[in-house]
């Protein structure tokens, strides 16, 4: 009976991980710049973007970010139980749904890691024998949290410097609209390459889905073959997320970005892609949307455009609150499950 429940739980978790992979694709807006610039036909752009995000997830997520979320963040000798993983998922999804209804932009990465922390703390309390000091790999957790502050900051700096450099070396030398149009015609094709590169690292850094699978692999609920198979399925569902669901967001955003110059898209996307790549290779799950917002901010600062600091402050407050609130929510949920004897 207990084994049956565990098997059902594993199936539920795998299905949820696949659904998460779909939602990662469905929420991705990286292609908007490409579609807005009219580089490719819409459907072709969706297919290329979908393949890139799926490939990034399959080939780069598992060994780095998913490993951090699924195992490395925990202390010596601690493994996720299936109920812990379930609670983490339910809590982070719940907080994201609450955020969406309240109109608050939240990071799924921050929400997930916050949920992990909340669950592990309650788990340690339940177990009694586990010391909070050893419940986490504090170095790793510290690096993850630090990267959340550093990645947007580096995004801003890189974009600012990159724009200034390109402006000095090239863009400021363009005198008339004909010259500008001609150079942007070439930039369009560079943008295509940059967006594909960015999509790969968006997929690679989205550790939520494969992190759950890694947790299941780590606790022995999945074998290595099953893990790889489901990773590929997650990659395919990320593709479908873009192709089936993200098209509406992309179309909507692309129509607002029609007047943006492809060169600006290159600067923003390449800066964020570099940040995502470095973070991924260090196994640090970061928020793509936070990085993009700060890259746009960096470009605006470089172009001496007005910045809405009030909106930015509000956003920053939600960013900071996401982690503790997700932690408290998951802790309460796990405590509730524990009280009913489920853990």
């Amino acid at each position, binding site marked *: 009976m207990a084994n049956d429940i565990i098997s059902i739980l594993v199936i539920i978790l795998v299905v949820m991980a696949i659904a998460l992979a779909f939602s990662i694709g469905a929420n991705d807006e990286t292609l908007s710049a490409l579609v*807005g*610039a*009219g580089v490719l036909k819409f459907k072709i752009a969706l297919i290329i973007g979908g393949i890139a995000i799926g490939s990034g997830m399959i080939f780069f997520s598992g060994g780095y970010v998913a490993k951090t979320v699924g195992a490395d963040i925990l202390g010596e000798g601690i493994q996720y139980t299936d109920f812990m993983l379930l609670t983490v998922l339910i809590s982070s999804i719940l907080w994201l749904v609450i955020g969406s209804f309240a109109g608050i932009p939240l990071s799924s990465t921050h929400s997930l890691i916050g949920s992990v922390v909340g669950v592990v703390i309650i788990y340690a309390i339940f177990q009694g024998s586990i010391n909070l000091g050893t419940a986490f790999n504090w170095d790793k957790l510290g690096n993850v949290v630090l990267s959340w502050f550093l990645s947007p900051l580096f995004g801003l700096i890189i974009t600012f410097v990159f724009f*200034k450099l390109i*402006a*000095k070396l090239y*863009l*400021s030398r*363009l*005198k*008339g*609209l*004909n*010259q*500008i*149009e001609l150079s*942007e*015609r070439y930039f369009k094709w560079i943008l295509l390459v940059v967006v594909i590169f960015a999509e790969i690292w968006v997929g690679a850094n989205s550790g939520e889905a494969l992190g759950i699978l890694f947790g299941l692999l780590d606790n022995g609920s999945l074998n290595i073959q099953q893990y790889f198979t489901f990773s590929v399925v997650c990659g395919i569902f990320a593709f479908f997320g873009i192709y089936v669901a993200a098209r509406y967001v992309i179309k909507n955003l692309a129509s607002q970005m*029609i*007047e*943006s*110059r*492809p060169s600006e898209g290159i600067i923003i996307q390449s800066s964020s892609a570099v940040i995502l790549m470095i973070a991924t290779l260090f196994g640090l799950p970061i928020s793509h949307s936070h990085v993009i917002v700060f890259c746009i901010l960096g470009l605006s600062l470089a*172009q001496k455009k007005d910045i809405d600091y009030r909106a930015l402050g509000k956003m920053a407050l939600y960013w900071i609150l996401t982690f503790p609130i997700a932690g408290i929510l998951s802790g309460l949920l796990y405590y509730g499950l524990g009280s009913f004897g489920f853990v």
Partner: protein
Amino acid sequence: MSELDEKRLSKLSIDELTRLFMDNINEQNLELIEGIESLVEEDFTKFKKKLNYVIDTNTEVQIKKTFENRIFKSKLMFSKKDRLKIFSKINDVKNIGEFMANKLLLYKVLFPDKEFKLDVLSILKSLRFISVNLAKAVKLIGSDLKDAYSICEEVKDERRKMRREEFRLLNRLYNYDMDYLSRTFLYLKEMIEDIMMLADHIKSFSEYIQFLATKYLIFD
């Protein structure tokens, strides 16, 4: 427009079509101005000939069609809207000119005195200046936005001068011993206002060109 011209047009770029369109409309504008000058000089035959030229000329229609077809297919999304707007603003110059020509032909006016004539000629001189300079600025959008910006500044200065001339003329007109419901009074008053309407459009067009320069130029 002959078949050969259509072929020639189809080979031109969006910028070349805009420049050709601007030349065409500017030429009509200059004819309109010369026509009003003929009216001041009481050469009614020349006046009618010039204004009818403005009304009857439709060579720009083919350029417009080719441009619209080309811009519709253009893949340069970021500048498409601005290119289209430049073209439509040039077209507005033509529409205002044509409207003025039709209105001016309604009546054969005689100017009250020499001073009034001189003031009208002076305001027309300014209109010619801003019209020619607007054409120069539009033609520079493709090659040198900085120069286009400077020329637009001159246009705006001259238009400011025209505003003072307009009130001087209206002041003179309102102080003549004349029936204020007479055709002469109404005709002259509306003529001045229409000249200023064209000047105002040219000024707003210049401001738009300056906006484009600010939008597209990047300084290090």
